[in-house]
């Protein structure tokens, strides 16, 4: 560029602002300059916006043509590259013990505690842990040994409390984990962490991840089904919410489908009087046309999910009645599950349904049992809780095993945390209470992929801290994914600029010691 004879600095040319003129004039000039810039810029911005709109429309069209990245078709699923390796388990059944079962009354045998009755737990054991508001104010932390005797069972000699006589029969098939631990001490964050890998809502749960990643094995049934057990008003029932089986940022077709425990497992599923199946089909076809129009206009991927759900509901009209029709179950089933299994809504009934779903190709079934939040009257409530769940869990594992399904089904039994060894409230000779305890709690798995007949990890004398082989919730979930053929670190979904995964950003590890 040719240099102006008067200009000495080409890089920073002289502007009116550099002139020796009154400040008021300078301000006026600056304002003018800004306005000019604004107009110039806004022209460009509008141009970009128009261009983006053009491209956007192309994008929408591809949405409407079904090339939605989120709603993974059978073909698109191949692009996820899942399972990463040949899985041991094709499906999973999760028995969720909401409330936090007391590990030292069920599995974590601490014979030495008997001599510690009513003595204060040493401060060194508790360390500087922050307690819940319910016991933080207690002056004493008296040790409450378990009220029930323990026994060794099976070939493997695993210790189980007398509260669980049925579970004791299957210990050789179980992988008992004494050192599961979590970060949260209150129900909602802990149960969210357990199910979604994150304490905050908005993340997909384990079942949704599996539905998204592995897909359906039977197009006529939901991939992920949630069964709730009827509550017992005598127990301390913590609320459950659909956040726990939410698909979070994944398309809502991967959310868990809840089956009700009454006579009508899915409300309004049956055709109303005067509407036969052909009429219903026609109606659905028309609705789908309208939905496709909407999709083409708006491009919200949730419309796709809606279309898929209408179709699923149509197919469920015949598949769900068949699923819940127990009339053809042989007598051996009732001998195994017990008479309770005939009443819809009991834990045993749900376990039986879970077995039937496993046979029919439901990928993930989660059964919730509430009431384990035993802050007080452990001696009064725990036998009821154990009796309600013990036989169902035993029957499920046994039934799966005799029918050859346990080879490729992973059964998981877990709550959101454990309970304290010290008594909440007054400790008497024959009763006590237990507060929340996140540092160690007992869970078990059985079936495809895990090593049967082992008790993994060790806790200290007070069942308070992990001494050996801790299994954090993230590791727990990573191990579950591993059994289903998924490398948890590679199974991600881009959202909010992050490669989101079930095992959250903190590194997790598959627990090799649990694997078969």
């Amino acid at each position, binding site marked *: 560029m040719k240099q102006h004879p008067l200009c000495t600095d080409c890089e920073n040319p002289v502007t009116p602002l550099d002139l020796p003129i009154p400040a008021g004039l300078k301000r006026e000039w600056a304002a003018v300059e800004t306005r000019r810039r604004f107009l110039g810029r806004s022209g460009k911005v509008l141009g970009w916006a128009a261009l983006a709109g053009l491209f956007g429309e192309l994008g929408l069209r591809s949405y409407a043509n079904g090339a939605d990245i989120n709603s993974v078709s059978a073909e698109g699923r191949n692009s996820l590259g899942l399972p990463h390796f040949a899985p041991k388990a094709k499906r999973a059944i999760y028995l969720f013990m909401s409330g936090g079962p007391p590990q030292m009354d069920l599995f974590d045998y601490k014979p030495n505690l008997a001599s510690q009755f009513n003595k204060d737990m040493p401060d060194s054991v508790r360390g500087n842990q922050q307690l819940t508001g319910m016991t933080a104010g207690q002056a004493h932390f008296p040790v409450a040994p378990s009220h029930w005797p323990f026994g060794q069972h099976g070939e493997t000699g695993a210790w189980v409390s007398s509260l669980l006589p049925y579970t004791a029969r299957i210990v050789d098939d179980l992988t008992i984990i004494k050192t599961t631990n979590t970060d949260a001490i209150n129900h909602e964050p802990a149960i969210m962490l357990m199910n979604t890998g994150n304490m905050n809502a908005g993340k997909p749960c384990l079942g949704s991840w599996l539905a998204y990643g592995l897909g359906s094995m039977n197009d006529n049934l939901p991939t992920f089904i949630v069964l709730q057990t009827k509550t017992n008003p005598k127990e301390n029932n913590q609320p459950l919410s659909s956040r726990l089986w939410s698909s979070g940022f994944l398309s809502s077709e991967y959310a868990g489908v809840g089956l009700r425990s009454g006579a009508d497992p899915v409300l309004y599923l049956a055709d109303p009087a005067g509407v036969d199946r052909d009429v219903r089909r026609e109606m659905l076809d028309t609705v789908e046309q309208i939905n496709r129009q909407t999709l083409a206009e708006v491009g919200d991927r949730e419309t796709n999910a809606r279309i898929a759900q209408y179709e699923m509901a149509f197919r469920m009209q015949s598949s769900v009645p068949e699923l819940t029709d127990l009339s053809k179950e042989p007598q051996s089933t009732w001998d195994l599950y017990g008479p309770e299994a005939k009443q819809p809504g009991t834990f045993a009934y749900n376990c039986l349904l879970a077995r039937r779903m496993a046979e029919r190709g439901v990928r993930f079934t989660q059964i919730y049992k509430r009431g384990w939040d035993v802050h007080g009257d452990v001696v009064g409530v725990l036998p009821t809780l154990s009796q309600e769940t013990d036989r169902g869990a035993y029957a499920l594992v046994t039934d799966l095993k005799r*029918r050859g399904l346990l080879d490729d089904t992973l059964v998981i039994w877990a709550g959101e945390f454990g309970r304290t060894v010290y008594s909440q409230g007054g400790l008497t000779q024959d009763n006590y209470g237990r507060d929340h305890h996140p540092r160690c709690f007992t869970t078990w798995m059985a079936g495809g992929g895990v090593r049967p007949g082992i008790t993994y990890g060790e806790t200290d004398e007070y069942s308070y801290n992990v001494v050996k082989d801790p299994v954090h919730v993230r590791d727990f979930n990573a191990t579950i994914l591993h059994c289903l053929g998924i490398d948890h670190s590679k199974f991600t979904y881009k959202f909010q600029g992050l490669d989101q995964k079930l095992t959250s950003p903190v590194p997790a590890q598959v627990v090799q010691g649990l694997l078969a």
Partner: protein
Amino acid sequence: MIAGHNLIAAIRNLRFRNVPVQWLFTLGLSVLLVMLPFAVPLGGRPHADGLQFLGRFHPLLVHLPIGMLVLLPLLELAGTTRLALREAAGFVLLLTLATGAITFVFGILLAYGSGVMGATVTRHMWGGIALLVELMLCVAVRPAWVSGQLHRIYPSLLALTLLTLTWTAHQGGSLTHGSDYLTRYMPGPLKKLFPSASAASDAAYVGSVYARHIHPILDAKCVSCHGASKEQAGLRLDFYELLMKGGRDGAVIAPRNPDRSLLLQRVTLSPSDRHFMPAEGRTPLTTDEIAALRAWILAGASPTTASIPGSSTARENADLPLQPVGDYSYLMNEIRQMQSSESAKLVAVSAMPSDGLILRTNDLSSKFDDAQLARFQRFAPFIVEAELGRTAVTDACFDTLSKFSNLRALHLEGTGVTGQALAKLSPLSQLTYLNLSGTKVTSDALAPLKGMLNLRHIYLFDTPAEPASTSTNRSTP
């Protein structure tokens, strides 16, 4: 070392092309070599450590003469066009003989010093002797070949030497890495050509803790030195009776007394201890394996006991490593059609095509019949799992299924099969899982399955064949 000196002298003599003397040397040395094993027998008794110190250089040195010997035929071939290379070949041959002789001496020192004995060691030693003799003969006849006489003798002698080398090296490899080093991870079809030696062990104790847990540990970690091939310290651990008999230092297992069992003492020493086993830096036993040995000895070290209370029964159902089934990618279009159609689906086991396909009929179940199954015959070799539970297939399905050559799992629960044609499954060597629950199969119909050793999980719940106990999970190792 005397042998070494003689050899050097022999080599010197060769320079003079004094044919009769040279032949005399070759002959004399050969006789000496053949006598050697009788003069210095490998009795299984260890000798001075100094000998072993030198001897341990044998595996190090051995690759030098091997390399040169393999180079030799290449040089001779190239020598037909470039004379310089032929001259080089002569030098390499002499060098091979010299280094080979030194290696041989070190080998004898190793065997004699460490006190090994056994069939493989003996074979390896005779191989070494044969090699030296053949090399000397090569040296003796080569000048005639170079000068254009005796066209055939030297090349055939060289070929024989190479064959001997291969065989001897294999024996040596078996000594260091174990006899199943090459065959362990061989693909299934090839494996059938080589009946495994370790498979034929203690057939009498099938299903016991010893057969399921203890023998596999010993087999993996100990038998390469304490087995039929080496018998280090006169101890063999490949059969129960030999294990209990012990070795030169007496019994190694004291039933009910793990702390006084020499075997357990040796594997639990500090790895730096010179008595630590497995020796020479081989993979030590894991804590789980030691625990299993301890529990078994504590329970009486019986070969027949089927369970030990308090010990883990894990891994007895550990499945076979998956056999790759080949790549089905070229069928991908048809597979996709199957996946999107209303019919049964072909689903990939995993993202790795070699893991095979699953035939999935859940969507149809009762509408899926033999004719539809027959349509999948085209994918037969890639289907590793057939989910035919609750479908309408009948006994005729076995005609199609018998062609699913890589089938690992077969679900026929709740179908109309009667089991009459189960014999047709016998060619399916990979089949490990068969679910016949809820069918009309009788125990007589199961007889043809007895010969299928990999078929470890048979489910007969709710059938006439169901035994008294509810579940049948045959565990044949």
